[in-house]
């Protein structure tokens, strides 16, 4: 430890104890060489409130050098460097008060109190961290289980989709087979019909008297004017309608009606399957952290209300804001990616491509996790 005196012209001279990690460079008996080697000065010019060294190393205890640093020991708390410009500026920066030795301001030594508070906070943080790690492990376990389940489900769905496709394929074959005689019959009928209409006698028959072929009954009628039919309503309404309109002599068409039933039901099923399929595929494709610890947040929504807006954050989905007192919702961005710094990628979420600002870029949201 080294004791340096600060002679200050025309001002209150006060003894300053300058404790620096580099104290071995400051030897009272020898000329002082700036730490960057740029100059050598007599020792009484060290800490004399005039900057001689380009690197500011001759004034560790004053505000003289623009690039200098002042060291506070802060016994009881953490040692700290402050810019030289904060020495004697009338504002207490070091908790041990050493930066304000000649400005007239009276600072209170708060190091012990800060040290105590810091230790308490650290303890609390350690506890929180422990609890957090426990929760995180549980979430990771859950996520990996959930992921397996979902992957299983996806595989099942993929399987199901395949069998459905096969089924459709089979039915198609059936349908074609069933339609063949019908088609032939239609062709024969068509030919006969053409022959008939081209005969001179036909021309005299009034057009209005020609009977509508029963096959052109609108589908809607068959369905009893509803847009879809489940099994029971098909039996009660549709099938009855079909029976009434299609006579048994068209018996060969029956497999065709079977196909009809399936094509009523399968669009709905197909649709449902594909939605589930897509959403699962999407969910599995998300980056839920290295161990999937963020998976439990998927689909969770949170709201934050301030005095003007209600902000709604749906994790891995979108962020929006809505004025509290009515008005339309504004999109603040949809899920983009993790956007933390390299070593902490999963500390920040970025939601992008929200509604454009007036004369500005699109809104986006950064979520600190």
């Amino acid at each position, binding site marked *: 430890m080294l004791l340096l005196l600060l002679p200050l012209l025309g*001002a209150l001279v006060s003894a300053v104890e300058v404790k620096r990690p580099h104290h071995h460079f400051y030897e009272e008996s020898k000329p002082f060489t700036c730490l960057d080697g740029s100059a050598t000065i007599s020792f009484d010019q060290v800490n004399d409130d005039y900057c001689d060294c380009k690197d500011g190393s001759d004034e560790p205890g004053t505000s003289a050098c623009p690039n200098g640093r002042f060291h506070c020991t802060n016994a009881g708390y953490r040692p700290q460097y402050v810019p030289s*410009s904060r020495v004697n500026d009338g504002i207490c920066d070091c908790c041990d008060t050493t930066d304000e030795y000649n400005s007239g301001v009276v600072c209170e030594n708060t190091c012990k109190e800060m040290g105590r508070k810091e230790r308490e906070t650290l303890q609390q943080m350690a506890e929180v961290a422990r609890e957090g790690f426990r929760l995180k492990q549980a979430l990771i376990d859950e996520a990996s289980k959930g992921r397996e389940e979902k992957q299983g489900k996806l595989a099942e769905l993929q399987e199901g989709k395949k069998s459905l496709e096969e089924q459709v394929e089979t039915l198609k074959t059936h349908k074609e087979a069933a339609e063949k005689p019908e088609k032939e019959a239609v062709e024969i009928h068509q030919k006969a019909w053409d022959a008939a209409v081209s005969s001179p006698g036909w021309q005299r028959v009034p057009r209005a008297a020609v009977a509508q072929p029963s096959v052109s009954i609108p589908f809607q009628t068959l369905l009893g004017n509803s847009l879809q039919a489940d099994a029971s309503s098909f039996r009660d309404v549709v099938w009855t309608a079909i029976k009434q309109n299609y006579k048994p002599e068209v018996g060969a068409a029956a497999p065709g009606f079977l196909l009809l039933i399936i094509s009523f039901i399968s669009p709905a099923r197909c649709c449902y399957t594909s939605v589930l399929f897509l959403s699962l595929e999407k969910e599995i494709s998300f980056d839920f952290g290295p161990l999937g610890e963020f998976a439990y947040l998927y689909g969770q929504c949170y709201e934050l209300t301030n005095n003007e807006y209600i902000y709604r954050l749906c994790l891995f989905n979108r962020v929006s804001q809505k004025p509290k007192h009515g008005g339309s919702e504004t999109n603040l961005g949809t899920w983009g990616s993790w956007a933390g710094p390299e070593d902490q990628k999963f500390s920040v979420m970025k939601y992008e491509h929200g509604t454009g600002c007036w004369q500005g870029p699109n809104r986006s949201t950064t979520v600190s996790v």
Partner: protein
Amino acid sequence: FSDKVSSTVVSMWDKIKNVFSPASVGLDFSFPGVEHVYGIPEHADSLRLRTTEGGDPYRLFNLDVFQYELYNPMALYGSVPVMLAHNPQRTLGIFWLNAAETWVDITSNTAGKTLFGKMLDYMQGGGETPQTDVHWMSESGIIDVFLLLGPSPNDVFRQYTSLTGTQALPPLFALAYHQSRWNYNDEDDVAGVDNGFDEHDIPYDVIWLDIEHADGKRYFTWDSNKFPRPREMLQRLAAKKRKMVSIVDPHIKVDSGYRVHNEIRSRGFYIKTKDGSDYEGWCWPGSAGYPDFTNPEMRAWWASMFAYDQYEGSLDNLYTWNDMNEPSVFNGPEVTIHKDAVHHGGWENRDLHNLYGFYVQMATAEGQVQRSRGAERPFVLTRAFFAGSQRYGAVWTGDNAAEWDHVKISIPMCLSLGLVGISFCGADIGGFFKNPESELLVRWYQVGAYQPFFRAHAHLDTVRREPWLFGDENKGLIRAAIRQRYALLPYWYTVFYRSYRTGQPVMRPLWVEYPQDVATFSIDDQYLIGDALLVHPVTEEGARGVQIYLPGKGEVWYDVGTQQKHHAPQTFYMAVTMSSIPVFQRGGSIVVRKERVRRSSECMRSDPYTLYVALSPQGTAQGDLFIDDGHTFNLESKAQYLHRRFSFSGNTLTASSADPKGSFESPAWIERVVILGAGKPAAVFLKETETRLGFQHEAETSVLTLRKPGINIGADWSISLR
């Protein structure tokens, strides 16, 4: 016209106006021998006024213009009906004292002639004498004209400011850096930005709150959710020796639950419609009334509202911004008040329109003085102004945009204002509308650091742009520009003091100091601060250099960055990098700096000074320094100030009093003297004590640095080089 005559005319007019109103007035003036006229702000145009043949005249009518156009004679936020005419022999002025809508047409018999054509005329001995003719016309009122006869520019400034007053000396903090945006959202946001400046070691003095801080745009109130404890917030800023400005606009929300509205209504202080009811228009708060600031009783009442017990949550480090005081009326004609609205004394708005903003700022400044019982100098920023507004604070150039042309136009706009008395001028750094690229923002800080009013501001819908949000390199560049400003604060303050005493502009065109140098008459991309510093800021995107003109036959200038000497007059190309701010100190001047830049100007109060002595070719130099407490009227009421003179000749630098009437105790001392253009002495002595001073001499640049004279700034002394 003398004052006496004009006041007689006014009272006559008072009697007859009801018979003849409205009636326009006009007058033509000819300036034989004059090719250059200046002034009549506010226009986003070049310093030298253009002829208006074949186009619109310059219009003076205070308006809230949305996204104004550049190089255009259209009316803007403020009006000063003062024009200067200049030729190498003489400077003249016209002060057309009329606050109605006014138009000025300019014609010239040399317009369109090339320099060659003019020379040909001259050589042939014939040709006409150049002449500029101006035609003034106002919608109503009387002809009340003051002719300012010069003959020098400084004479015209003295003559004009003897009529309307000089620039008020701002409190020192107001010359430092201001951080503003629409809006700092709440107390946490303010604390975060305030801490950001310390964390990134960037100085700043004042943080600003725009309209969102008030409860539903009810001025003199705080939004209780965002700013629940304004006094504590102000105290936290005060602990760091910093200030705050809150906006107080003159449109008052019509709301029976709002005390300010109720009082103004019950006292009958609102402007009236032609039918006698309170005038109402649409502005930020919705339906709003407009207090009649032309009524002295209304102004007195308004001033009383700034008392600490009236403006709840205010403290002595809270100052004021008057925006929208043209006044802006969103649903009014040309976004302002109807011309037939009726003011105090039965005057129609058409008769005094351009004075409204002037009175708003006057009443606000008066309120700040009164709250301190007359002790503290006020700080009020205004957007609208008129002749004389310089007595009440600062103006800025309104809602500009983040474009290179806008940074460029800020120079002639502020130069024009300075010529007609209003020196405390600046532009929104970064541009109000739109988002600046980092290069534009850095350049704008460099420009703003060398303009009188130094404030960054931004529109609500722009991306945040505090100086540390653009990467380390840009942050460093912005910090360096702001630090240059802080180091030069003693010089700025001294130049403002001289402006306060003499009416000379702080930021001045080159021709003001070099009135015979025709080459300077149209220059508005470079200018002088005081008479010692010449600035040519970089305002071109991707600039690699600038063309600099250094005036003064037989003079020298020193590049402040490199300390290299340049001979004048000459035009030369100076290469620039992103860190370059081309500034030159005139040989023969002494500029005083404080080189220990701290986090706010008040923190630097007791810091030592460095004298920069730039020697003329004759080896001489002079300069001065004004010091007081930086914020009270004690300089006037108690003569508490120091005005020091420094002079170098015969190898001796002496310090003496420039004004023995003032006295002031300061702990500040002189830490360094830098002499530019000096040879190497054998020894340097402080004469009074015969003490030898240490020194360093750079042979390459001829810079002599004297180490630590250590003398108090108030002392008389001399230093000799032997």
